[in-house]
């Protein structure tokens, strides 16, 4: 119960951060990605702020060892750069560049720009389900530790 409540609060804060930062505006995202056009570098600072705080959190969590509400930290342990990681990131980047939407902002926009965001999220879920249909994907998808 406490885990669920904290997940809700964390999701809410994450969504607020997306809205405040401008990450939730696809036009802003595309302007950031448009390096050869009228480039808007603002969103690079979202990354700077987010990585700085998350890195600090990681160091503290590692030092503490045990999380407050769970028995152990579940952090991906793989270190190898396999073709699948790079191919997946490339496919993801193509989709991200086409619409300016990635999973977090798409979910947060479902109540702001419903028709478009719900369309995108529905397609995204179908894409995730298609991945699960890959015979080689199924066992790996079950190992949550492999997820970043």
């Amino acid at each position, binding site marked *: 119960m406490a885990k*669920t409540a904290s*997940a809700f609060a*964390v*999701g809410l*804060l*994450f*969504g*607020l*951060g997306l*809205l405040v*930062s401008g*990450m939730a*505006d*696809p036009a*802003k995202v595309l302007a950031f990605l448009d*390096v050869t056009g009228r480039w*808007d570098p603002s969103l690079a600072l979202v*990354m700077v702020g*987010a990585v*700085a705080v*998350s890195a*600090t*959190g*990681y160091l503290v*969590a590692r030092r503490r060892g045990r*999380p407050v509400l769970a*028995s152990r930290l579940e952090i991906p342990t793989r*270190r190898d*750069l396999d073709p699948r*990681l*790079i*191919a*997946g*990131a*490339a*496919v993801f*980047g*193509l*989709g*991200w*560049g*086409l*619409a*300016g*939407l*990635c999973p977090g902002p798409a979910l*947060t*926009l479902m*109540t702001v720009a419903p028709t*478009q965001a719900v*369309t*995108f*999220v529905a397609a*995204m879920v*179908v*894409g995730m*389900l298609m*991945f699960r249909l890959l015979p080689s994907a199924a066992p790996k998808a079950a190992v949550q530790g492999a*997820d*970043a």
Partner: protein
Amino acid sequence: MDGITPVSALAGGAMIGTSAAMFLLLNGRIAGISGILGGLLAPPSRETGWRAAFVAGLVLAPFAYAGLGGSLPPVTVEASFPLLILAGLLVGFGSRLGAGCTSGHGVCGIGRGSRRSLAATGTFMAIAMLTVLVARHLVGA
């Protein structure tokens, strides 16, 4: 589009980072949205509750934003519906194949110095920039 917004970008980024840090310290988990959502597509388990709660928080964030007195920032979705569907399919499939998205690899992964996440983030940023270059400046529109 409407100019550079360094302060809100940095502040919003810090909020996202705080959220990721809290999730690790409290739940011991990585705040990777595609992984959290993807896990919901598996048969119900003990993890279904917190995953659904996290997604609900993300979806309801605009109400909290308005409730805290903010007027929602402008949001412009330029993509047509066929393009949204194509992009959604690619983002969904790619994020699972690559085991992460902007949050899991870009924020959490780089934050803990993972070379897999660094490689993934470099790849999707480069491909996304290339996609915008082709779509906006080479194909037209």
